[in-house]
């Protein structure tokens, strides 16, 4: 099977249309199951009480705020090097979802910080770098929207996305590099997780649900983008009728 075939809008558009309902259904099931475990099954935390349950939305949102930025920058690189228009459309379509998860991570973090630290916000390295991530997403979307010529807006915003990716490892390692009020990570690749198995399970299922949600939403947005950009092409009009 030639996967590169799907890098053209003509072949991508119907394929994405077929995949989206399945991905969205699995995403919904996983999120409901994750909520069930996180809110109904998992016990309370011996240190933080039930405030810890915010972890089930906060951590998956924070993970995907960073992960989606890296994927967006990856598509920006593909767009600039291969001059592939679908890559630029992917990058552009990832930004709103990434920005949404960044906003959610910041807000739910504030609602977790207040009962555990006594403050909605502190200017520590983790929170500040995550706020910069939100500004990078907003900057990317503003630049994309500010330039009318699609080729120019794609290329200049791609450069912004690529330069900004340096912020992601700063967010990720901020809790190690600096003395932050924000707690260190409970999960990493080298040691076993420092949380109960059922809590970990709920969080990972929510994360998987958020991942599939992101894929479904982003693919849908790419389809809308294709409709906008290829509006006058014969293939799209033939497809619509």
């Amino acid at each position, binding site marked *: 099977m030639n996967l590169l075939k799907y890098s053209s809008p003509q072949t991508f558009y119907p394929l994405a249309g077929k995949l989206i309902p399945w991905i969205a259904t699995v995403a919904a099931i996983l999120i409901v199951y994750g909520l069930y475990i996180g809110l109904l099954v998992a016990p309370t935390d011996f240190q933080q*009480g039930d405030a810890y349950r915010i972890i089930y939305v906060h951590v998956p949102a924070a993970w995907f705020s960073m992960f989606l930025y890296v994927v967006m920058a990856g598509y920006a690189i593909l767009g600039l090097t291969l001059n592939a228009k679908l890559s630029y459309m992917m990058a552009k379509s990832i930004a709103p979802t990434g920005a949404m998860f960044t906003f959610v991570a910041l807000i739910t973090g504030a609602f977790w910080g207040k009962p555990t630290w006594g403050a909605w916000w502190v200017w520590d390295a983790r929170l500040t770098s995550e706020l910069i991530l939100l500004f990078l997403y907003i900057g990317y979307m503003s630049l994309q929207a500010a330039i009318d010529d699609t080729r120019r807006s794609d290329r200049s915003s791609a450069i912004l996305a690529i330069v900004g990716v340096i912020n992601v490892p700063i967010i990720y390692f901020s809790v190690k590099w600096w003395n932050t009020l924000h707690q260190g990570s409970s999960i990493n690749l080298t040691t076993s997780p420092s949380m109960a198995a059922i809590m970990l399970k709920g969080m990972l299922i929510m994360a998987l649900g958020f991942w599939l949600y992101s894929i479904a939403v982003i693919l849908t947005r790419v389809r809308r983008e294709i409709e906008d950009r290829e509006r006058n092409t014969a293939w799209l009009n033939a497809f619509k009728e």
Partner: protein
Amino acid sequence: MYWKNISDFLQMGGYGLYVWVSFGITFACMAIELFLLRARRLSNENIKDLL
């Protein structure tokens, strides 16, 4: 099931406000994103009709 009754569940050991607002904002944001995407689809379909 961890909770003894519905009132315990809603109160979340005194952290109910923080927990429920967090979950509420998260899913409200996702719902708004889905709504905006749907609005964009409808507007694209209308443009198609006008062409």
